[in-house]
């Protein structure tokens, strides 16, 4: 049976689930507090203020439908993160948001239990 390891996860005061991901910003590894957003079809979505630390993948872009129905084009970047001390190169996009988000592509190989009644959250890798 596969052994699962706990990843950091918590609810904020508004019951929004969060996790902490170590992300390479320039030469430093920085823990990023990320909202877990199952409505985001991607891996990591960061505020534009972080863009300077990442390399754009020239010519690679995708169209996204945002909350108000508008279609926007966003360029693809790649970035390094660490999950349980294991490095991984992942897809990163940037937008005018205030909070880093992780989406479905981050969650897809993990267990996520959200219990709002008992205010419990568990995330396993």
């Amino acid at each position: 049976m596969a052994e699962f390891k706990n990843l950091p996860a918590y609810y904020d005061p508004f019951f929004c689930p969060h996790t902490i991901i170590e992300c390479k910003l320039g030469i430093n590894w920085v823990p990023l507090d990320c909202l877990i957003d199952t409505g985001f079809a991607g891996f990591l979505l960061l505020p534009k203020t972080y863009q300077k630390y990442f390399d754009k993948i020239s010519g690679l872009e995708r169209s996204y439908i945002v909350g108000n129905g508008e279609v926007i084009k966003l360029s693809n970047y790649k970035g390094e993160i660490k999950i349980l001390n294991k490095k991984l190169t992942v897809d990163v996009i940037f937008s005018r948001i205030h909070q880093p988000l992780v989406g479905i592509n981050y969650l897809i190989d993990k267990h996520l239990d959200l219990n709002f009644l008992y205010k419990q959250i568990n995330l396993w890798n």
Partner: protein
Amino acid sequence: MNINPILQAEKIYNNIKPQLVKRYRSIDYVVIEPSSGDYYVDNFAWRAGELAKQNHPEAENFIVATVGSFYGRI
């Protein structure tokens, strides 16, 4: 005539989607080179993009979609 690469890629995507959904997960990425119609699939867009660029070093635009949807959602 300068064809919008996104519209071209969407047309290609709609043609290939029936085959893609049989082989790949809906969240796997498809990178499409619109001029040739070539496409590359990987669970990371950056990796599919690198393969696309290796095969099409002269191309300027590569359009990303997922197997399940041409448009992403935020």
